C-alpha cells in the first residue's frame, strides 16, 4: 500500500538542518551544487531557532536564524526534506546511496496552507517539546510559530481520532491513513551535521534535576527568556512565581568524570552569562548568581561580555555546587563551598536554578548506525586530520560540521560548516577527474 519509492539525486547529501547543516547547504548551493538536505524534525533551524538571544552580540536568535532558514527553503538548488529519517548511507563506486524515510505528518503537504485551523480545532493537549515541556501543544500542531515549513504534524500515538481537524481543514489535506514514504537518494558527497544533545538533567543525582520542578535546563531557560516563550515572561514552573533570586550551576554536565563527561562543553559559561544578563534586563531587581569553577570566555568579544556582566551586578561565585535540595515551597537549596571568602560549606536558597548542562553528541555511529564513522574517546565523531582539516571524517567523501565533532558555539559551528562545504566541493571536483 505504501507508494513507490521516490528516487532523488544530488551533488551533496546534508544530514541535519540545524545552523551547521543550513550553512553548509547554503555555502554549497550558492556555488551551484545540488543539495539534498534532510532533517528529522518537522521544522528546520535546529537548536538555534529556539534560543532567546545569542552571545556576545545579544542578537535575537530567531531573527538571525529565520532569514537563513528562509533562504534554504526557497533556494532553487536545495531540495529540503523535513520530518525525515536517514536509515542508511552506503558508499559504492564512489557514490553515496542513502535510504531515507519520510515520516507521515498525516496530511498532504502540497495542499496544506499552514492556516492552523486544524490545531485550533484539536482538543488534545500535549507537552510541547519545543518549549522543553514547559508549554503545551495540540496533538496536531505546527512545531513553533516561525517554523519552516509551516506544516503541522499529527501525533498519531496521541490522537483521539475525533476527526475535528479534518473537518476544520479548508483544503481537506488531512489523511489519517498516510504511510511513511521511502526515498532512495544518490549523492557524490555527504555532510553530516547532526548536532548535540544536552547531558541528561538527571545525570547528577545530587542535583535532583529530574525531581525538583524549579531546577531547570538551560534550554528551558532559553524558552523562558525568548520573547515568544511559553509563559510570556520568566516565571518558575512550580507555581508561576516571578523569581527574585536565580542561580546558575556551572559544569553541571561537563568537566566531571563521575558523569562520564570529562571534557569542557565550551558554551555553558557564555550561555549562562548571557542568560544572566537577559534576566537582569527583564527582572531588574532579581539577584542572579553564577556558581562556577573557571569562567571560560575564550572567544572573540567573550571576555568583554563577561566583564560587562560583572559590572551589571551579576554575582560570580567560585564554587562547585555539591548538592541541591528543596524546601516545602519548592525553593531549591544549593550547598556550596564559597571558597573565595572561606573554606566552609554554606546553604543558599534560590527561587529558580538553572543547571548549566553540557553537550553530548546527538547521534553516535556505533549506537545509531546509518554510516560507520569513527568516534573519539568523547563519543563525538572523530576528525582524522584535526589540525588542518577538522571536518574530515574517517570515511572518504563524508564530512562533519558543527557540534557533531565536539561541543562548539554558533560562530565556530558556522565557520566549520563553511570549511566542510569547501571540503565537499573540492572532493566533488577531485572525483570528477576520475
Amino acid at each position: 500500500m505504501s507508494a513507490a519509492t521516490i528516487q532523488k539525486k544530488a551533488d551533496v547529501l546534508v544530514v541535519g538542518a540545524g545552523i551547521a547543516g543550513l550553512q553548509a547547504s547554503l555555502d554549497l548551493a550558492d556555488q551551484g551544487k545540488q543539495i539534498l538536505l534532510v532533517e528529522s524534525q518537522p521544522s528546520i533551524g535546529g537548536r538555534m531557532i529556539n534560543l532567546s538571544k545569542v552571545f556576545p552580540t545579544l542578537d535575537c536568535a530567531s531573527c538571525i536564524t529565520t532569514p537563513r532558514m528562509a533562504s534554504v527553503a526557497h533556494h532553487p538548488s536545495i531540495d529540503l526534506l523535513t520530518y525525515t529519517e536517514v536509515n542508511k548511507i552506503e558508499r559504492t563506486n564512489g557514490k553515496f546511496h542513502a535510504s531515507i524515510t519520510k515520516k507521515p505528518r498525516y496530511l498532504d503537504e502540497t495542499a496544506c496552507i499552514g492556516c492552523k485551523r486544524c490545531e485550533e480545532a484539536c482538543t488534545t493537549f500535549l507537552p510541547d517539546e519545543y518549549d522543553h515541556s514547559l508549554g503545551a501543544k495540540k496533538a496536531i500542531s505546527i512545531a513553533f510559530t516561525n517554523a519552516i515549513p509551516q506544516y503541522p504534524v499529527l501525533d498519531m500515538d496521541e490522537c483521539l481520532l475525533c476527526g475535528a481537524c479534518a473537518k476544520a481543514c479548508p483544503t481537506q489535506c488531512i489523511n489519517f491513513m498516510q504511510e511513511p514514504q521511502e526515498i532512495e537518494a544518490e549523492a557524490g558527497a555527504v555532510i553530516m551535521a547532526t548536532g548535540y544533545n544536552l547531558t541528561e538533567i538527571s545525570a547528577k543525582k545530587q542535583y535532583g534535576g529530574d525531581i525538583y520542578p524549579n531546577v531547570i535546563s538551560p534550554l528551558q531557560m532559553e524558552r523562558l527568556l525568548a520573547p515568544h516563550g511559553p509563559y510570556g515572561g520568566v516565571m518558575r514552573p512550580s507555581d508561576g512565581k516571578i523569581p527574585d533570586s536565580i542561580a546558575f550551576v556551572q559544569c553541571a554536565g561537563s568537566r566531571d568524570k563521575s558523569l562520564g563527561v570529562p571534557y569542557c562543553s565550551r558554551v555553558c559559561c557564555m550561555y549562562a552569562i548571557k542568560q544572566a544578563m537577559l534576566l537582569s534586563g527583564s527582572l531588574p531587581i532579581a539577584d542572579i548568581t553564577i556558581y562556577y569553577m573557571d569562567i571560560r570566555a575564550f572567544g572573540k568579544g567573550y571576555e568583554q561580555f563577561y566583564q560587562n556582566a560583572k559590572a551589571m551586578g551579576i554575582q560570580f561565585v567560585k564554587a562547585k555546587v555539591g548538592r541541591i535540595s528543596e524546601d516545602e515551597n519548592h525553593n531549591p537549596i544549593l550547598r556550596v563551598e564559597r571558597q573565595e571568602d572561606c573554606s566552609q560549606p554554606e546553604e543558599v536558597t534560590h527561587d529558580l536554578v538553572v543547571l548549566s548542562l553540557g553537550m553530548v553528541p546527538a547521534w553516535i555511529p556505533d549506537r545509531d548506525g546509518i554510516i560507520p564513522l569513527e568516534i573519539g574517546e568523547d563519543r563525538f565523531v572523530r576528525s582524522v586530520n584535526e589540525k588542518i582539516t577538522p571536518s574530515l571524517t574517517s570515511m572518504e567523501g563524508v564530512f562533519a560540521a558543527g557540534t557533531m565533532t565536539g561541543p562548539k558555539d554558533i560562530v565556530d559551528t558556522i565557520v566549520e560548516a563553511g570549511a566542510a562545504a569547501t571540503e565537499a566541493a573540492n572532493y566533488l571536483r577531485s572525483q570528477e577527474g576520475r
Partner: protein
Amino acid sequence: MEEEKKLSYTEQIKELRARRGEGSKEKQERSKEQIKAQKAILAAIDKEAKTVPEIAEATGMNTQEVFWWITAMRKYNKVTDETKKGDYIAYRKK
C-alpha cells in the same frame, strides 16, 4: 494509495479506531480529564483574575498542573494575562 484516498474521513477514523482497539478508551478518558481540568480553571477565573496559587486553592489542583494549563490556554487564546499581584501574574478567562 488511490484506493485509500477514496475513504471518507469517517471511514478512515472507523478503520483506525478498530485497529487501535482498547487504546481508544484510555485516550478518551484522558481527554475527559483534560476538559475537566480546563473547565475547572476557567470557572475559577471567569469573574475575577487569579494567580496560579489562588487558582490552585480554588480548584484543589496542584500549582504546577494549574500553571501548565494556564500556559496551554494562554497559547490558544482562552486565557489572558491581567495585572501583576505580588510576585505572580493574575490570569483571566478571555
